[in-house]
């Protein structure tokens, strides 16, 4: 083992070549935990085995199942739109392959762009590469629509990492959640491509699919000779979807026509298990809850935020049920709200980001609760966009320091009162 270490060490570029050295250092510390020892005096002599790499990696592991399911669901929705492989498990390998080839470029672009920027800034500032993007890079593909154009993704990530993080000083300094910032950038900059009913299913075949001959196979199976002039493949598919199929998410249906409309298209089991159109990783509730369970059991994520966010959302939804009447969406029974959309994903992986959340225990309770309330308000009472967690979390990210401020002020005044007594 030490021979291998010596071999690796031979490649260490000189410190003057900053770019190269940062790159080398990044990969080296990835492979080897450093040989640093604690200081001789004035500090502790032993340190906890936990470091940021490990923390981040466990979060990524908790999301791993979402990737596998998301991958399969992309394929499933694609073939459902074509009217092929009807059952959920029919054509298992084909669906899996289609999904894998669809998600792979998204994942690669996400990490190459994000980590590339991070490497560049680390080299420029002369510090080690920080691990923050490990999680962001894994989260971003999961919250994007499956057929997002790659250039759009690249621009969004560049914006989020440069403006959202590096401008504030890098990992640990950002005010807004990086992954959501990328998402919100796409949402506001390209509203046509990330809202409506047609972006939640991947219809087309990319060049990777074509290498595997998947497009040809589909066309042969459906008996399509050629796509008519002036029509792309996806438009052709959309024009010929089977009866009873919709690309609209349950939320979109509920916002337009209420719970009844949702039930016409989707069963509860379908929504619970996640065989519905939506962002890549948000649909399968049990798997997200397993991820949340991992984070809670290992005490990586804050149970305060998760619990209070759930309570906040539930109470708001119940209140809307009671008020009711103004809008069909308000009448959707409160418990169904958790089955539609991305509540659990936002709760488990987005709201719990420690950097952008409130940092005091009491603050976390307030922060989570307010996300639940605001998110539900945005989801139901906003006419344009039937999902609220992204905007609610970003909104509360901005307020988190204020919440902390008041919690600390309470602590300070408690101390002052002690003096005056």
């Amino acid at each position, binding site marked *: 083992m030490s021979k291998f270490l010596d071999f690796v060490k031979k490649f260490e570029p000189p410190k003057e070549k900053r770019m190269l050295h940062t790159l080398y250092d990044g990969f080296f510390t990835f492979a*080897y935990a450093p040989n*640093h*020892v604690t200081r001789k005096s004035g500090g502790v*002599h032993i340190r*906890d085995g936990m470091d940021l790499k490990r923390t981040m*990696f466990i979060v990524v592991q908790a999301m791993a199942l979402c990737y596998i399911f998301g991958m399969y669901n992309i394929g499933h929705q694609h073939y459902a739109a074509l009217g092929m492989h009807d059952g959920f498990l029919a054509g298992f390998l084909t669906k899996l392959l289609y999904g894998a080839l669809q998600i792979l470029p998204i994942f690669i672009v996400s990490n190459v762009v994000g980590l590339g920027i991070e490497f560049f800034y680390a080299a420029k500032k002369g510090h080690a590469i920080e691990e923050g993007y490990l999680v962001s890079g894994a989260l971003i593909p999961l919250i994007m629509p499956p057929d997002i154009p790659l250039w759009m993704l690249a621009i969004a990530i560049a914006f989020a990492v440069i403006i959202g993080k590096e401008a504030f000083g890098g990992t640990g300094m950002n005010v807004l959640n990086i992954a959501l910032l990328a998402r919100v950038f796409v949402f506001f900059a390209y509203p046509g491509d990330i809202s409506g009913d047609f972006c939640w299913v991947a219809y087309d075949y990319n060049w990777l699919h074509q290498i595997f001959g998947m497009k040809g196979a589909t066309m042969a199976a459906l008996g399509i000779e050629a796509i008519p002039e002036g029509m792309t493949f996806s438009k052709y598919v959309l024009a010929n979807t089977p009866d009873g199929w919709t690309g609209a998410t349950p939320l979109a249906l509920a916002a337009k026509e209420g719970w009844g409309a949702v039930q016409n298209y989707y069963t509860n089991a379908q929504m619970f298990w996640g065989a519905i159109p939506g962002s890549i990783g948000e649909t399968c509730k049990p798997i997200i809850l397993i991820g949340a369970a991992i984070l809670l059991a290992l005490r990586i994520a804050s149970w305060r935020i998760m619990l209070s966010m*759930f309570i906040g959302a539930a109470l708001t939804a119940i209140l809307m049920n009671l008020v009711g009447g103004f809008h069909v969406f308000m009448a959707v029974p409160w418990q169904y709200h*958790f089955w539609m959309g991305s509540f659990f994903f936002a709760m488990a992986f987005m709201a719990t980001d*420690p950097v952008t959340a409130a940092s005091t225990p009491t603050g976390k309770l307030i922060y989570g609760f307010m996300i639940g309330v605001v998110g539900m308000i945005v989801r139901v009472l906003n006419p344009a966009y039937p999902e609220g967690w992204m905007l609610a979390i970003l909104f509360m990210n901005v307020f988190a320091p204020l919440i902390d401020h008041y919690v600390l002020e309470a602590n300070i005044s408690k101390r002052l009162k002690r003096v005056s007594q």
Partner: protein
Amino acid sequence: MNIRFKRPVLLFALMTLAVTAQAQAGGLSSAMLTALFAVALLILLVVILLVSDIFMGEEARRTGADKTGENYSLFPRLSEITRPRAAGYTNGASVTHLKRGHDILLEGEAKKVLGEARVNTVAVSPRDFVGMSPIPKVLVAKDDEVKAGDILFFDKKRPEIKYASPVSGQVVDIVRGEKRAIDKIVILVDKEQKYTEREIPNVNGFASREDLVNYLTESGVWAFIRQRPYELVADPADVPRDIFVSTFDSAPLAPDLNFVLGKNATAFQRGLNVLAKLTDGKVHLGLNAGAEGAPNLAFTRAENVEKHWFKGPHPAGNVGIQIHHTAPINKGEVVWTVNAQDVAIIGNLFVTGQYKAERTIAVTGAEVRDPKYYRVPLGANVEDILKNNILTERKTRTVAGDVLTGTQIENDGYLGFFDDQITVLHENDEYELFGWLNPVAVRPSVSSTFPGSAFTDIKYRAETNTHGEPRALVVTGQYEKVLPMDVYPQHIVKAILANDFDRMEGLGIYELAPEDVALCEFACTSKTNVQEILRKGLETLREQG
């Protein structure tokens, strides 16, 4: 072997909520399906638990480990659940239960045996005292003969506090460091100890408090009394609000003060009586309600003091934590603290008239061949104690003090003025392949991501690797979990880094000493030097006056 029961309750609550919501949503059939799934999952878990329980029991029988009567089952026995929470020896006194904190269990605890060691030299270092000027006024020269209790030096800023020689002997060296600062005064120890002759005073025989203070400062024992905030040697001009003494040390491998104090009850009580004369308030004694056996009778039967029982993981034994839960320090207030062994040294002066500056120290650590206790003078040279007593398989580091707050010394170096422990641990400066990934590494940690966290009695071999590089603060709530005080340590750290004086004061920096936040530093995922930052913050505030 005890399994710690975690917080799966919440998890189940969330899951159940999800399941009920699903049940309401989906009519009978899908509710049935989900419920069946949940039940199946539960049964699977129970089966796994039961099977592992049987295996563990079998293993315990095979190795004969069950003969000790320990519970080797995964489940607690009925008697363990119904066991009374407060130990019997507290006699029904109210106990402060501290939930937050963490015991770092390490190998190499000192056996309760007193070893023989000849200490040839001792050193007194002005640097052991917070705020001392670098070049104090030294009253002895090289080759001078001194008696135990003779004054060696005093700080020119506070000339009334005298620092005495702990032993009689010959001054062999006055070591100077950078800018001619006095590093230490080394004394060759006489075979027969001679003491500065003093009349045996009577605690109640002093005309005024001032006379008593003068006696204490002249005899050299004043240096044992330190003040909070700042951990300075106490100012003789102050009258403290209260005086606090902790009778147990909860730091990793710390000496057992019940054993250390031994039969010194008379001297200890005398010391407490002296302290009681120095304050308008009370002398508070912090006792351990968390130990198996009752504390030393010297502590439980102490008079002239107010006793407080504490139970909980480290840092429950830290006097700072005990002050916070007894009567917290407010801005402008001063309290004094004295270590339990030093109370006995002060008391001994009033029993025999001699300044007998000896402590029983624990030599600990997994790298020590024979960890046990030694009775040595203050500032003793450790060479003879550690000679042939350190395992040689690994690189080692010798620390005067415990692993959280100590200072590294050479194997022939000297203990500091306040040290009562030596720890030898593994200097692990090796790279570890995929160290951050390794899920089964056995190492001390407050996080639950290491399998060892499930067991409450695994002992670890301490080593000095940082297990990661320093990073910006990312994880929150981590410091609060290991500091049982109503303060927000992470925000104090940030206030110090931002030089925000009002914030520091408001958030209670005066209630903290570096040793109290040592566990925060240990636990920090971002490897921040919390103690150093706090020390800097306190220093700035002190300079600002």
